[in-house]
């Protein structure tokens, strides 16, 4: 165990899995010589060489599709998007090729590929560079979607994603690369996909949070504890498939739930989780499911407006107080 940043944890996962399996290669914009726009791939070119770590032209649709083809022919590509905002250019290959290949080939062609990179808001990079689009990818059967919130989760889940035989969308959070935490240095350390993590146990209300919202939810739980409210914080970690059972179990215990997310509220992940809770645990609810989401606007540039657009600790606290009928 050592304390490392999320960036270093991801780097360890990439390095270990590439050393473990020579069919794993890493491709993307600035991943090699530049060592990654966010330095996640630091040192990999020097250690593994340019056959395994490949700089691409700015051609997202092209290299995403190349990755899918290479996976069909037996390799295990890791395709880095400098940010998931740019994956929008590649969605045809992710959705029409990667997600459906196994099914439409009658089970003949699996696509073991990881599409990874930072997602969500960064620091004042405005509308086109601050999008949390996990609900898009989570919509499609055939894809798996992972969003870690701690360095340990990032490492363990990325290693599982690379070893998985299906296409995995692995969304890191730009603001969290510097976050620190204890991480195992055992090369066989992995965290299974599809398993939620109870980040904090509690009895009065459940907060379901992912990615950037997890540390916010934990802070909110601290604040609420001072106010006499005990919160359970659940991080699904994998959005598809979703470990709804762990969430339901918690809701049945606390009878109140707030779902926090950075993304827009419309047709989003929180809508799906809320709906499933309603369908399967309605009788246990003492209050309506409450969502805390990013503002329903394109991300503004101005610092004060950007802060208003991203949910914070205060909003989560207010939402929990609301479902607990404290105000």
């Amino acid at each position: 165990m050592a304390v490392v940043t999320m960036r270093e944890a991801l780097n360890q996962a990439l390095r270990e899995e590439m050393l473990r399996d020579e069919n794993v290669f890493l491709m993307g914009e600035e991943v090699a010589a530049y060592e990654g726009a966010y330095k996640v791939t630091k040192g990999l070119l020097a250690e593994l060489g340019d056959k395994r770590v490949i700089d691409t032209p700015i051609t997202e649709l092209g290299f995403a599709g190349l990755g899918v083809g290479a996976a069909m022919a037996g390799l295990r590509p890791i395709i880095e998007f400098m940010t998931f905002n740019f994956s929008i250019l590649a969605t045809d290959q992710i959705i029409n090729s990667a997600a459906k290949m196994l099914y439409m080939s009658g089970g003949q062609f699996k696509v073991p590929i990881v599409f990874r990179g930072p997602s969500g808001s960064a620091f004042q990079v405005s509308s086109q560079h601050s999008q949390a689009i996990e609900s898009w990818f989570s919509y499609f059967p055939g894809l798996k979607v992972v969003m870690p919130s701690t360095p340990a989760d990032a490492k363990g889940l990325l290693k599982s994603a690379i070893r998985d035989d299906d296409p995995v969308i692995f969304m890191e959070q730009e603001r969290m690369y510097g976050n620190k935490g204890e991480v195992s240095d055992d090369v066989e350390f992995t965290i299974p996909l599809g398993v939620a993590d109870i980040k904090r146990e509690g009895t009065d209300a459940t907060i379901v949070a992912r990615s950037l919202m997890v540390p916010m939810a934990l802070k909110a739980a601290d604040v609420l504890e001072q106010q006499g409210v005990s919160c359970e914080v659940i991080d699904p970690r994998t959005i598809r498939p979703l470990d709804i059972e762990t969430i339901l179990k918690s809701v049945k215990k606390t009878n109140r739930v707030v779902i926090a997310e950075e993304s827009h509220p419309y047709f989003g992940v929180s809508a799906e989780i809320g709906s499933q809770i309603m369908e399967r645990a309605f009788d246990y609810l003492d209050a309506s499911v409450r969502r805390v989401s990013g503002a329903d606007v394109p991300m503004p540039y101005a610092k004060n407006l950007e802060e208003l657009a991203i949910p914070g600790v205060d909003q989560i606290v207010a939402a929990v107080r609301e479902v607990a009928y404290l105000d």
Partner: protein
Amino acid sequence: MRKRAPEPSRRQAGDKSVAVIDEEPGEAIDSPSLDQEAVKEAQKERLSGLDRATLIGIYHEMVLVRRFEEKAAEAYSSGKIGGFCHLYIGQEAVAIGAISAIRKDDYALTSYREHAHAIAKGMTPESVMAELYGKAGGCSKGKGGSMHMFDREVNFLGGHGIVAGQIPLATGVAFATKYKGTDQVTLCFFGEAAVNQGAFHESLNMAQLWKLPCIYICENNQYGMGTSLKRAMSFQDIAEKARAYEIAAEFVDGMDVLAVREATQRAVERARKDYLPTLLEVRTYRFMGHSMSDPGNYRTRAEIEQHQERDPIKLFAASLKEEGVLSDAEFKEIEAKVKEQVERAVQFAEDSPLPAAEELFTDVYANPIVPGKRD
């Protein structure tokens, strides 16, 4: 090394052998050289270099896919086949000529107009017909249909429904073979309309940048659905576009099966030896509509007939006959054998069961995860 594309025939306005096609409402660009004597001479020369079994094999395959598709059209009309059904009739020389130039362990990918490629690559007519019928015995277990045929055994990797979608995929397959250090090549077929997609340009750039053994075969049948090339492409010399990526390119007569085979062989050599890509622009023509529901009001009957004079099967049959490769009796034997093969395919498809209801939920994930399960 770079092969220049020959000058397209429309630059030879004074050449009396170039047929003039009515421009309204059909807007096909001129065919490659229609100098029949020159074509015949060239074919004669190509024929002489090949053994009889190879020639017969190629001819047999062309007749097989033609009759197979005629039968598929019939089955579609009688409601046995659903969805879309894009026929290849008229273009047979391209898939069969090109695939005859590669090995079984080489790869091929194509668009949704794919029945011929699938069969030429070694898939059985039975598994292709059963797939069209949406039956469990189909190559994709009835889950893919006409547009999504696959067969791992013969390295046929689909069958793709989004125009140009297969081009980056094929580039990736070529990347994988080079990565693994094999000498396999990848054939990537697509229509000329795919050339207007970014995926084509992105792929060619990467293929030459990284020296990938992919052979891009543009089947220029001159229409993207109902829109002629002239109405869709500002600069229509597709082979010339390879220059933008410094990729070797050739312009090929797509009605001459042996011309396609030879051009592909040259490309295969470049790919196997030096991991170099090639772009072939193969000028062809589809005799049927874009799909079975095509009204055909965008081109004239006369235009279609004009091209049918150069029916690739008829052209090849004439050469085989003239050179004494096949006698009349042998032609009949091939027809009879093909008829039997197609009937067998139809019978297999008819007899094959529907996919079981449980199949709806299989093959979504290679590694299905039960959420919450810690191992």
